[in-house]
């Protein structure tokens, strides 16, 4: 039983590992600013699918890892991701029954809230980017939601992760 549980957590861990890898993967300079927030996508998905297992705590830890990945001050992404997970958990029953395009809009709002949090923190320590391009990731992230949703749902169902 415990081995089975481990195996099932493995799928969740794997999805996070892939999200982190995609975050670090070198991209050409012109597309770097549009890199989607992969970790946020995965956090939102698991918060919606398994709210009793994946919650604010795990989002916070993922955020702490993301801080090191991005070379930011410790706590910046942790705070943003924890708050985003909190919003998701607060509305998860509603979001679940939305249609996919409605969910996409919700994801847009969630990632925007995360980015707002981050630019706020960056502004406080005096390194806020001036470029408007800063906001592009929330759009690319939202556009990727339908694919992420279907891929992760198929994974979850075929491996019966509860």
């Amino acid at each position: 039983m415990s081995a089975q549980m481990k195996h099932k957590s493995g799928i969740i861990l794997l999805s996070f590992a892939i999200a982190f890898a995609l975050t670090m993967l070198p991209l050409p300079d012109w597309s770097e600013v549009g890199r989607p927030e992969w970790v946020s996508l995965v956090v939102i998905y698991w918060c919606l699918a398994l709210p009793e297992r994946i919650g604010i705590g795990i989002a916070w830890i993922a955020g702490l890892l993301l801080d090191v990945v991005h070379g930011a001050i410790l706590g910046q992404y942790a705070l943003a991701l924890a708050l985003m997970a909190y919003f998701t958990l607060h509305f998860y029953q509603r979001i679940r029954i939305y249609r996919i395009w409605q969910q996409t809009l919700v994801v847009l709002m969630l990632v925007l809230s995360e980015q707002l949090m981050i630019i706020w923190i960056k502004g406080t320590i005096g390194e806020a980017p001036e470029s408007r391009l800063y906001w592009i990731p929330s759009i690319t992230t939202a556009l990727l939601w339908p694919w992420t949703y279907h891929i992760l749902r198929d994974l979850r169902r075929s491996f019966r992760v509860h």
Partner: protein
Amino acid sequence: MRGWLHVTLSCLWRITIKQRLFIQGASIHTKIALLVLLSIVLMTVDHRQRHLEGIRSVISAVIYPLRYTINLPFVVVNWADEVFTFRNNLINENRALLKKQRLLEVKLQKLAFFEQENRRLRSMLQSAKRGWEKVLIAELMAIDFDPFKRLVQLNRGSNDGVFEGHPILDANGVVGQVIHVDPLSSTAMLITDPNHATPVHINRNGMRAIAMGTGEPNRLEIPHIPNSADIRIGDLLVTSGLGLRFPAGYPVARISEITINPSESYAQVFAEPTAHLERTQEVLLVWPESDTEEKR
């Protein structure tokens, strides 16, 4: 009796059904409040002091396998590029390198003499200027950071003696400095990062200035240069060694743009780094001479 039953049932209902429907009901609010507080404390401590380097290097070590895996294909491609190259190309390259090395060796003979003379003169003046001697080559890992910062990952860490604030050069000039170290790798900030400032002076006349990063790939800003200052396009900026971070006398940038607006008290001056920041694959880590002497 009925009343008691009612209370127990409603309690049971609350515990079983409600708890299941509204997961983590009340605790979710306390949890988020605690985590927000913890994050703010973390950020404050990390921004003001350096106590959290331990936590950071632990997390960095957790991420290292992922970083290594991402970097691996690039290593393999480079290796394959070296292995499957034509013999003729190798011979030509080898010839060119030998020629270059001979030229450099001739220059080096003179340099050794000058260095000796310089040291003797300095000891006569009793000036304790530190030289920087020992070097180590590090490779950049193919890892991306925040696009609005200019950070790179090096494949050398504290196991190789890399320390925080370690200056990094390449063949053409100053590249940046190390900001976080973990055992196997380290993170470095390029001189173009918006948070980086390099103390420099103009090689031609010795005027001191500060070269600030702009966040753009090949542009430094030189603030607080008076309109009347003797500064020209093409002037070479070299490290002044004043911050005690960078060894003195290494090239940093060339002035590329000067805009003088008479209504403002300072000129707008921009410079282009001499190091190939965006193309370089290998960089040099430089140790202070005094430290290496202590090690011996």
